[in-house]
């Protein structure tokens, strides 16, 4: 039984369910490895706790007005730090024995690799936010509205983390295959994700202040999410393995 042949037509898209299935299989594979050691969750969760304690020590005496400004910053700064940590680890795991290259050579949709990795990163980030947000609410009285509007808070956190993850996964994967230095990741990641984080920041502040524009900011963040996920998904294959038609053979101008 041969399931495929080299002589089949290229780009025969005959398996519509392949993408979600493969994405889920890859995410499950990552989660399964994680459940052997709890390495990612433990380091990221511990890191979140440490940051939270440091915030408590540094900012506990802030006035209520100042807290309104400080709390959104703490929240999204921590997400940025934890995100960079998680992304580095999650692709280090694929680099250890070059499994990412194996996946690229395997009959796997490239988009499925992206979605699987992004899903795991998102889950880890959300897990950290499950520590972070209640912690912030407990420590800073001004953050109480976050607890009073749980649905809005959860939506906001998911959308914000999604924005970060979508961009981060693309560039972490790109660096993992280009044999580059991981140091470049933070250099690239922080300026690129800051616009998304600023949107999340503004929305968080609106939520804390019970500002009527909150839903507007939230929908803007959602629109940004769609743009970022779409763009990253579109670029993922090209960044990991060069695609597209080969450069057309140009007639060389004479050089003299």
């Amino acid at each position, binding site marked *: 039984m041969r399931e*495929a042949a*080299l*002589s089949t037509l290229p780009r025969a898209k005959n398996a519509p369910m392949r993408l979600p299935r493969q994405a889920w299989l890859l995410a499950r594979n990552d989660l399964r490895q994680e459940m052997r050691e709890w390495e990612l969750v433990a380091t990221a969760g511990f890191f979140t706790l440490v940051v939270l304690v440091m915030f408590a020590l540094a900012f506990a005496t802030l006035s209520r007005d100042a807290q309104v400004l400080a709390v959104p910053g703490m929240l999204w700064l921590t997400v940025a730090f934890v995100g960079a940590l998680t992304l580095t680890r999650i692709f280090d795991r694929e680099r*250890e024995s070059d499994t990412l290259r194996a996946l690229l*050579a395997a009959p796997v949709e490239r988009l499925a690799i992206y979605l699987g990795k992004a899903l795991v990163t998102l889950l880890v980030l959300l897990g950290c936010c499950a520590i972070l947000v209640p912690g912030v609410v407990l420590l800073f009285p001004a953050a109480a509205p976050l607890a009073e509007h749980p649905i809005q808070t959860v939506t906001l956190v998911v959308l914000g983390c999604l924005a970060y993850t979508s961009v981060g996964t693309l560039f972490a994967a790109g660096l993992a295959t280009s044999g580059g230095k991981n140091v470049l990741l933070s250099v690239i990641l922080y300026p690129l994700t800051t616009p998304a984080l600023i949107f999340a920041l503004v929305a968080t502040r609106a939520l804390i202040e019970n500002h009527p524009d909150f839903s507007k900011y939230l929908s803007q963040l959602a629109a940004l999410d769609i743009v970022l996920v779409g763009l990253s998904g579109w670029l993922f294959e090209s960044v990991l393995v060069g695609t*597209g038609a080969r450069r057309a053979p140009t007639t060389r101008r004479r050089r003299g």
Partner: protein
Amino acid sequence: MPAVTPLQLRAIGKRFGRLAVLRNVDLTVASGEIVGLIGANGSGKTTLLSIAMGLLPMSDGERWLGGRQVDDISIEQRAAMAFVTHTTQLYARLTARENMELWLSLRQAADASVGEIEPVLRRLGLGDAIDRTVGTFSRGMMQRLCLARALAGRPELLLLDEPFTSLDPPGRKRLAEVLREEADRGLAVLLSSHDYDAIISVTDRVVLLSGGRLVGEVVRADERGAEGFRDAVLALGRGSTREAAHA
């Protein structure tokens, strides 16, 4: 046996800026044929295999798969190819069975083929280690597991980058036997190696890559016999080292 040629590389060139890694390389691998790729370190063997597998874009030339020119290798085409590298490419935290399961379930619509895992592993001498974590394996065992994973997908074209490096003599012998069996069923194999003895024992044809270009070829002709082929390959290898020393 399919009539088409699984892999044909025409005038492949690969440059990184001013550095030409491959120049004008023509290479064909037919069904049932095992082709050996020899050459010094840095002669472009791994680059050539990566280009054949579509993991690197080429700067010049054409890649033909199954009689058709291919710029972007489709999923269906990748399903008919397999690439085993000297890096093990296995998840060290998972068991051999789980690694195989992941690969087979990624390929197929249902987890139907999971029953095939044990025979394949046993064939490569890993029958006792099925449920051990890959992290506890020796390099040689990992290499065999990789090969098992590649063969389980029943490819038409198998690319191997330094498959003999960490195998012990019995392991090499077994690998050679398995490759020969698969080739007899129509598999096309392209493998690179430093190990002349292993190459001589398994290949039908040996090509020498030097400085990014193909500089020599020896075909195992029936009338020449094993010794003749052996001497020709060794002479080819000596020629390349002399050339390298000269340059």
